[in-house]
C-alpha cells in the first residue's frame, strides 16, 4: 500500500476543517452539510480500504507467517528535540489502529449524517461541521500515531475539539462551564502523561546510541514495544518510592488515559460534557475519544506487561470506577447522564480486561492475552451500541425537548423505530445473546476470571447492574406511564427524519451482528490469531445475572407503580448520594474554588500587589522620605550654609585622617 491513502485520511478531515472553519461563514447550511457528509463518507471508504487491505490482503508487510505486523506507512520528522528525541508524524498500521480507523470513521459518518437532521435549526451549523471535521482529524491522528509524542499531540487536539464541541451552545453558561471543566480536567491528567513521557524518553534516549534502543527516536512505539526488557533495563538503577522508574512512568502515562477515559477520580467532566449536542456525545463521549485511554494502554501493552504493578493499578482503578459509575447510573434522571455513567462504567470494564491480561502464562491457562483481545473487542462493540444509544437518546430529546425521563414515558407508540433500535442497544449493552455486547463481555469476564476469581465476580456484578440501569431507563422512557402532555400538545412526539433514523438502523444492525465477527482472528496483542470460543460457565453466569437484572427492572418499571419511590424513601441517604454522584463534584469544587482559587491565587495576587509591588513603591517612598527629611539642610540662611560647609570640610579631613591612622 502506498502512502497516498494514509496521507489523505489525515489530510481530508483537516482540509475540511479549514474550508468549513474559514469559509463556513459564507456558505449555506446545505453546502456545508453536504460537503461535510461527503468528505466523511469518502473518509470512511478510504479507512475501510486501508483496514480491509491490512486485514485481508495477505500482503507480506501486513501479515508474515500468520502473524500480523506493525507497519509504519510513513513517518516524517516534525521536530527534533535532540538527536535521540525526534518527534515524527506518521501513520502506524497494526490491528488496533486499523480497527480504530473503522470505528472512528463509521461512527463519525453516522454522526455527520444524523446531525444534518438533529442540528438543522441550530445557528452555527457550519461551525459545527468544521469542529466535527477537526475532531475526526485529531482522533485519526491519535490512533495512527507512530510515537508517543505524536499521540500526545493529537491527544491534546482531541481535547480541544471536545472542548469546542461541548461548548457548542456557547450562549448557555452551563455549556461553557462544562466545556471548560472537560478541558481542564483532561489537561490536568495530561500533565501527568507529559511527565510520564518525559521520564520514559529521558531514560530511553540516554542509552547508548548504538545499543538496542538506539535505532529510532526514543518516542517510537514500535521500537519501544519491540523490546520492553531493554526499556526496563534502561531505567534500572533509578527507583522512586520503591517502585521502578518504568512503573512510575507507565502509571503516569496511564493517568493521562484516566483523564480522557474518565476514570475515577478524574471522571467528573464526562457527565457534564453531556451539555454538548447529543450527536457529539455519541461520537466523542461514547465511542471514540473516551476510549483513548484504553487505546493508550493497548498501544503500550508490552511495556505495561513488563511492569505488572502498573497493570494491577489499572485493574484496581477500572474495577472501582466500573462499580461506582454503575451505581450512580441507577440514580440519575437525565437520560444522557445515565448513558454517560454507563459509558464510564463500560470503559472501566475494558480497562479491567486489559489490566487482567498478563501475557506471561499463568497456571492452567494457555492464553493470557485474552483480556487484551476482549478489551479491544468490547471497545469495538461498545462503540457501536453506545453510539446507537446516544443517537437514540438524541432522537428522544429531539422529540420531547427534554433530557429528563420524567418528561417521557410511553414513547414506544409514538416512536417505533427509535424504540426498537434503542431496545437493541440496551440488550447489547446488557450482554444478551446474540447481541454483540454478549460476546465481548463474555470474553472479558473470562479473562478476569482467569486472572482471579474476585475480579470476575466483581465485574459480573457490575454487568448485572448495567443490565438493571439500562432497562430501568428503557422502561421509564418507553413504558411506565405516558406523559399526558403528548395527547394535548400540537406536536406529538414522532420518529426522527430519515437522516436521523438511518444511522440508528445501521448501528442497530451492526450491534446485532458484530458479535459474530471473528475478532480474535484480527486483533490480538501479538498479532497471532486467536480463536474465540464461548466460555460456557462464564457465559451462563453472566447471562443469568443479566436476565435477572432485566427481570428486576421489568418488575419495577414496566408500569407506573409506587415501588421505586418507596425504595428511594427507604434509603434516602444512599439515593441522595448516588444521585449527587457521591459528591465528587462538590469535593472538586471545594478544592479548586475555595482552596486553589480563593486562597492560593488570591493570596499570590495579593502578595504581588502589596508585598512585591509595595516593595517597589516602598523604595520610591523611602527615597521621597529621605528627600523630605534632608530638606532642612537647605534652610535659606547663609550662616547655616557655611556651618555645613565648614563642618563638611573638617569632617572630610577628620574622617580621612582617622581612616589613615
Amino acid at each position, binding site marked *: 500500500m502506498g502512502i497516498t491513502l494514509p496521507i489523505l485520511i489525515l489530510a481530508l478531515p483537516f482540509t475540511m476543517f479549514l474550508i468549513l472553519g474559514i469559509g463556513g461563514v459564507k456558505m449555506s447550511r446545505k453546502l456545508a452539510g453536504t460537503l461535510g457528509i461527503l468528505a466523511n463518507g469518502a473518509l470512511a471508504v478510504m479507512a475501510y480500504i486501508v483496514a480491509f487491505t491490512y486485514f485481508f490482503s495477505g500482503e507480506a508487510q501486513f501479515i508474515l507467517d500468520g502473524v500480523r505486523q506493525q507497519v509504519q506507512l510513513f513517518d516524517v520528522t516534525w521536530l527534533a528535540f535532540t538527536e535521540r528525541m525526534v518527534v515524527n508524524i506518521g501513520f502506524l498500521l497494526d490491528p488496533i489502529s486499523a480497527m480504530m480507523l473503522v470505528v472512528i470513521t463509521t461512527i463519525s459518518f453516522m454522526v455527520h449524517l444524523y446531525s444534518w437532521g438533529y442540528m438543522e435549526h441550530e445557528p452555527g451549523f457550519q461551525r459545527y461541521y468544521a469542529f466535527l471535521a477537526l475532531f475526526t482529524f485529531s482522533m485519526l491522528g491519535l490512533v495512527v500515531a507512530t510515537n508517543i509524542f505524536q499521540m500526545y499531540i493529537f491527544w491534546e487536539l482531541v481535547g480541544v475539539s471536545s472542548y469546542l464541541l461541548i461548548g457548542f451552545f456557547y450562549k448557555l453558561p452551563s455549556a461553557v462551564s462544562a466545556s471548560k471543566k472537560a478541558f481542564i480536567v483532561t489537561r490536568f491528567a495530561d500533565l501527568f502523561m507529559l511527565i510520564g513521557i518525559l521520564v520514559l524518553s529521558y531514560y530511553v534516549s540516554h542509552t547508548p546510541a548504538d545499543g538496542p534502543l538506539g535505532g529510532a527516536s526514543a518516542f517510537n512505539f514500535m521500537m519501544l514495544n519491540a523490546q520492553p526488557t531493554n526499556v526496563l533495563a534502561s531505567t534500572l538503577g533509578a527507583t522512586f518510592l520503591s517502585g521502578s522508574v518504568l512503573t512510575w512512568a507507565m502509571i503516569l502515562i496511564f493517568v493521562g488515559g484516566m483523564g480522557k477515559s474518565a476514570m475515577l477520580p478524574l471522571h467528573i467532566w464526562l457527565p457534564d460534557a453531556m451539555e454538548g449536542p447529543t450527536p457529539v456525545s455519541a461520537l466523542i463521549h461514547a465511542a471514540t475519544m473516551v476510549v483513548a485511554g484504553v487505546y493508550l494502554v493497548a498501544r503500550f501493552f508490552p511495556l505495561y506487561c513488563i511492569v505488572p504493578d502498573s497493570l494491577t493499578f489499572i485493574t484496581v482503578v477500572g474495577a472501582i470506577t466500573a462499580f461506582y459509575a454503575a451505581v450512580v447510573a441507577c440514580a440519575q434522571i437525565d437520560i444522557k447522564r445515565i448513558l454517560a455513567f454507563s459509558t464510564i462504567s463500560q470503559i472501566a470494564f475494558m480497562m479491567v480486561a486489559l489490566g487482567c491480561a498478563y501475557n506471561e502464562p499463568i497456571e492452567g491457562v494457555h492464553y493470557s492475552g485474552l483480556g487484551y483481545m476482549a478489551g479491544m473487542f468490547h471497545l469495538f462493540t461498545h462503540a457501536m451500541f453506545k453510539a446507537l444509544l446516544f443517537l437514540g437518546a438524541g432522537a428522544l430529546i429531539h422529540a420531547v425537548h427534554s433530557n429528563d425521563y420524567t418528561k417521557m414515558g410511553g414513547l414506544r407508540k409514538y416512536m417505533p423505530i427509535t424504540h426498537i433500535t434503542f431496545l437493541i442497544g440496551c440488550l447489547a449493552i446488557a450482554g444478551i445473546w446474540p447481541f454483540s455486547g454478549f460476546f465481548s463481555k463474555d470474553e472479558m469476564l473470562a479473562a478476569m476470571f482467569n486472572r482471579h476469581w474476585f475480579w470476575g465476580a466483581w465485574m459480573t456484578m457490575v454487568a448485572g447492574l448495567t443490565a438493571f440501569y439500562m432497562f430501568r431507563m428503557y422502561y421509564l422512557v418507553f413504558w411506565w406511564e405516558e406523559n399526558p402532555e403528548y395527547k394535548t400538545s400540537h406536536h406529538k412526539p414522532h420518529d426522527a427524519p430519515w437522516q436521523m433514523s438511518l444511522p440508528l438502523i445501521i448501528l442497530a444492525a451492526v450491534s446485532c451482528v458484530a458479535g459474530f465477527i471473528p475478532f480474535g482472528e484480527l486483533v490480538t496483542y501479538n498479532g497471532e490469531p486467536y480463536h474465540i470460543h464461548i466460555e460456557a460457565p462464564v457465559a451462563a453466569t453472566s447471562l443469568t445475572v443479566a436476565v435477572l437484572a432485566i427481570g428486576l427492572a421489568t418488575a419495577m418499571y414496566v408500569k407506573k407503580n409506587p415501588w421505586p419511590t418507596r425504595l428511594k424513601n427507604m434509603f434516602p441517604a444512599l439515593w441522595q448520594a448516588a444521585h449527587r454522584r457521591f459528591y465528587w463534584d462538590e469535593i472538586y469544587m471545594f478544592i479548586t474554588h475555595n482552596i486553589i482559587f480563593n486562597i492560593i491565587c488570591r493570596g499570590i495576587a495579593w502578595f504581588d500587589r502589596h508585598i512585591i509591588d509595595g516593595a517597589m513603591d516602598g523604595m520610591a517612598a523611602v527615597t521621597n522620605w529621605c528627600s523630605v527629611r534632608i530638606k532642612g539642610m537647605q534652610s535659606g540662611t547663609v550662616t547655616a550654609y557655611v556651618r555645613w560647609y565648614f563642618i563638611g570640610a573638617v569632617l572630610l*579631613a577628620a574622617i580621612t585622617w582617622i581612616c589613615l591612622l
Partner: protein
Amino acid sequence: MDYSQFGAMLPELIILGIFLIVFCTDTFGGEGARKILTPFTTVLFGLATVAIWIIPSNAEPIFGGMYVDTTACKAMKAMLNVGVFIVLLQSAKWTDSDEVAIRKGEFYELMLVTLFGMYLMISARHFLLFVIGLESASLPLAAMVAFNKKHYESHEAAIKYILTAVFSSAILLMGLSLVYAFSGNGSLYFDDIRVALTGEAPSGLLIAALAFVIAGIGFKLSLVPFHLWTADVYQGAPTAITAYLSVISKGSAAFAFFVIFVQAFGSMYSVVWEWMMYAVIIATITIGNLFAMRQKNMKRFMAFSSISQAGYIMLGVMTESALGLGSMMFYIFVYIVSNLAVFSVISAIERKTGLVGMEDYDGLHKTNPWLSFAMTLAMFSLAGIPPFAGFFSKILIFTSVTASDSMALYMLVLVALINTIISLYYYLLVVKAIWINPGEAKVEGFRSSGAERLALWICVAGIIFFGLVPYIYQYCVDMALPMFN
C-alpha cells in the same frame, strides 16, 4: 622679562581684546552704540570662538611655568566659548528689555571678565595665578547675580553668593597656606608641589590642607556639602546668569580641579584624596538628586540637577588618566549644550510670560511644540538616554572610571548608575508636565526670537550629534593625551 611671552596667551588676549572693544563701545559709543551692542558683542564673540578653535595651542610654559596653554586647556577654553556664545544668544532678547537695556554693557563686560578669569584658572600651573583666576571668575559673578536690581530674589541670591564665595576663598587660602608649608622649597608651582609631596606620609595637616582645597574649589563646582548656595543663587539670579553659572563656571572649575589634583597632588591620590572624593562624589550625586526630586521652580530644579551632574563630572577626576580627562571634557561639553538647551527654553518662556514653575509647563506641547521638543531632548540628554549625547558622555565617563581594576571604583559607578534612576525620575517629571499632564496650557503659543532659536538649534544639534558622531570625544581624548606624556 620677555614680553613676547604674552603672545602665547592668545585666548586670553582675544577675550581681553573683546572686553576692551565692548567696554569702549559701551562707554564712549553713546545711545546708538548701545542699540547695536548686543549683536555686535555676539558676533564678535562668535568670531572669537571660531578663532580660539582654530588657533594652535602652545605647549611651551611661559612665565616660568605659571601659565601653559596645552592642547587640553585650549580645547576646554574653546568649548567654554561655545557655551558662552549660546548664553549670549539666548540672553540677547533679555538684554534688550527695558530694565536691562541701559546696563547691558556691564553685563557683557562682567561676563567677559569672568571668562577671562576662568581661562586663567584653566591654564594656571601656579597657585597664585590660579587664585587670581578663581577670584576674578567669581567676584564679578556676584555683581551679575545681583543684576536684576528690581527683584529682591536677585539681591538675596547675590548676598548668599558673595558671602559663601568669600568664605570659600578664605578656606581655600587657608588650605593653600598649609600646602605652601609642605612645598619643600617654597614654590607654589604645581610641579614643584608634586615633587615635594612624593613620598610624603600623609600627616594630619596635609590631609586638612587637601580637604580645604577640595572645599574651596568644591564651592565653585557646588559639590556637597559645599553646594548649599547653589540652589538659592540659581533661583534668584537672572536666567542668563544662572545658565552661565551652571555650565561655564562649573566646567572651568572642574577642569582646574582635575589639573590641580592630578598635577599638584597626584602623588597623594590613592592615599588621601581618592577617598575624600569618593565620599564627596557619592554625597554630591545623591543629595543633589534627592533635592531635585521635590523642586517645583525650574531654575531651582536645574540647580540641583547641576549639582548632581557635577558629581558625575567629578568621576573623571577619579581616573587620573588621559582617558578620564578626555571623558570629563566630553562630559562637560555635552553638559554645556544639554543644560543650555534647557535654559534657553526656560529663559524664552520666562521672558515671554514670567513663568518658571514646573506646573506652568503643563500641556506646553499644545502651544509650543518646538520648545517642548527641545526641552524633551534636553531632559533625555541630561538623564543619559540614548541616542542623545548625554548617554554617551555618562557611559564613556563610567567606562574610563572602571578602567582601573578597583572594586571600589566599580561600586562608585554602581552608586552613580543607581542615582541615574532618581535623576531620570525628576527629568521625566518635566517631560511629564509638558506632554502628559492634563489641562490647558498656561503658556500661550509664541514665536521665540531668532537668536533664541539659533541658540536652541545649536544645542539640539549638539544633543543629537555629539554622541553619534565620535569625533568630539576623539578630539577630547586626543587633546587630553599630551598632558600625561
